């Protein structure tokens, strides 16, 4: 188990990682998701021992590893650009870590061959690194780290340099390998699809801090901050003011559009400015005003048919544009909407989120 407590790191006065607390359970696949420059790679390097924190502690399986150098940690990394040794063959690359441990050559050979098999590269140990394709390099880098049976495997955007099709394929391979070897994976990425698709839990980072840590479902359906809501998936936002009525219900007043009910959350104070946020696929289009609590009126400005769903751009009365996704069904195909049609949008109260302005970023 990895425990990160209160870790802070700054580079020449600039904070890269600020007071991070994180626990990763054994065998877990945890993603650290965030935009570039949010500190996710620094956090990874701190765990790997390639950087040392200015304050805070790191524990691995109960041992304090805060001041342990990288080469003494049982933590291995798959680097962003793989960092395979160009002057060695595939075999020697994979054997590097084992040879550092002074393992018996016969045993090394067996382990490397097993690794090559796991990576679908059986019998290709003699190849030079420069002759490998991007996907093969990625797999060699993965095996080079995994063959040392680390307590923790770190992956720094390992799929970033590959094309989309290969990425999707390797996402599945990676998850399959992780399930097989049962090693703890900490995976850094800026790609929300990748994070949602592969992980047991996702830590969303922004501006040097973890904004939310949860399962992919929690992150998507119950974002805690506006940043998380907008970084993971699409979001529509209406600026408004919070009001708590006599019955204790929370209402968001949006100027010139009306009032909308919201879930009553903790610390909801009257008069707070903020944003009412609804995901595009949670909005439903009606041609006649539905009898729902929350209804918006608008005009279709543009639509594009995308097979599984149709994407609409709806212009509201105040000129604000909302994105709406509607699942395509055969029924919907018959009552097609057209650009410039006047329509109504409705959503269920519990599918909207309100973020007070102080938490907006």
């Amino acid at each position, binding site marked *: 188990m990895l425990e990160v407590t209160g870790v802070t790191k700054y580079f020449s006065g600039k904070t890269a990682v600020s007071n991070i607390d994180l626990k990763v359970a054994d065998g877990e696949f945890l993603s650290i998701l965030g935009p570039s420059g949010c500190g996710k790679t620094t956090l990874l390097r701190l765990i*790997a*021992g*390639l950087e040392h924190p200015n304050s805070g502690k790191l524990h691995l399986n109960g041992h304090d590893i805060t001041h342990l*150098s*990288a*080469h*003494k940690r049982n*933590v*291995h*990394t798959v*680097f*962003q*650009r793989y*960092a*395979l*040794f*160009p*002057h060695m063959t595939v075999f020697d690359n994979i054997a*590097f*870590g084992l040879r*550092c*441990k002074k393992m018996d050559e016969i045993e090394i050979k067996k382990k490397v061959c097993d690794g090559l098999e796991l990576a679908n590269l059986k019998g290709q140990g003699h190849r*030079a690194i*420069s002759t490998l394709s991007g996907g093969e390099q990625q797999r060699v880098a993965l095996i*080079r*780290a995994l063959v*040392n049976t680390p307590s923790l495997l770190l992956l720094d955007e390992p799929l970033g340099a590959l094309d989309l099709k290969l990425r999707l394929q390797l996402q599945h391979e990676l998850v399959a390998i992780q399930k097989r070897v049962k090693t703890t994976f900490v995976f850094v990425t800026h790609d929300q699809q990748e994070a949602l698709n592969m992980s047991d839990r996702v830590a969303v980072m922004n501006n040097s801090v973890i904004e939310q840590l949860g399962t992919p479902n929690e992150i998507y359906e119950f974002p805690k901050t506006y940043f998380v809501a907008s970084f993971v998936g699409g979001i529509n936002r209406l600026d408004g003011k919070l009001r708590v009525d006599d019955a204790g219900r929370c209402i968001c007043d949006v100027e010139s559009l009306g009032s909308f009910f919201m879930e009553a959350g903790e610390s909801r104070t009257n008069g707070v400015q903020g944003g009412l946020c609804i995901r595009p696929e949670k909005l439903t289009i009606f041609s006649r005003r539905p009898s729902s609590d929350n209804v918006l009126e608008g005009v279709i400005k543009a639509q594009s048919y995308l097979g599984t769903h149709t994407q609409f751009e709806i212009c509201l009365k105040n000129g604000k544009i909302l994105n709406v996704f509607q699942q395509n069904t055969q029924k919907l195909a018959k009552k097609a909407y057209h650009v410039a049609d006047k329509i109504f949008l409705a959503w269920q109260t519990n599918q909207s989120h309100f973020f007070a302005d102080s938490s907006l970023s």
Partner: protein
Amino acid sequence: MTRNPQTFRVATFASLAWLWASFLVIAPLFYVIAISFLKRGTYGGIEPVLTLENYTRLADPYLSGTILMTLGRSVWLAFLSTVLCILVGFPLALFLVFKAGRARNALFFLLIIPFWTNFLIRTYAWVVILSDNGWLNSVLESFGLGPEFLHWLFTPKAVLIGMFYNYLPYMAMSLYVSVEKLDVHLLEAAADLGAGPLKRFFKVTLPLSIPGLIAGSIMVFIPALGEFVIPDILGGGTSLFVGNLLAQEFLTVRNWPFGAALSVILILMIGLCLYLFEKVTKGKGEDLIA
């Protein structure tokens, strides 16, 4: 040939380079080879008479013995200079690339500054430093090591110091270029996989710096082999090196044809060295390029 301006420009520059090479390298070389087969004039000139005498003279056991001794001494000294340059140049290059940080350019500049002073003056400066009552001995004396503690001037030690001092920048610079190209992530990956600092150097940094090491060694070894000014000034002519032998034949004895024959032999030997060097390092070099 197409009238492509790009091709034309390349051809122009290439022809300039060829012109340079033919006038300043190939022509003198052929001149040396040519006169090595001619007869010596009575008063030091050349007589246009074809002869193999200059080469057959080398068969004389006494003479060839002396020449071989001299050659052996020169090769050994050039080898020592090269090793010394590597031993100091490698850490220097590593320091410049990885540790110097912002001072890197300034320090690199310092490495070049000595070239602004004439080579002879720099070499004579070492006479002042190394002589029996020079600076080095005064400093050592002030540490209580007695007067004239070191007798290094006019010995092979002083020659080695002079060679090392003059050729170090070439080694340091070519290593610097190689080390600078080294991907830091490879060193991080090695550390991540459990390699300590020494292992990182021998398994990653050194193998990937071999092109610079080869270039630097060639740039030090070959000029050092033919060097005659440094042995003259710092060695005081006490021990003869190949460079001195040649200079003597041409300038003092004024036997140009025999000097030319010796030069041809030396060129052939250097060529052989380079060939062997290439053979030995070939496998590694190809790996790096591939």
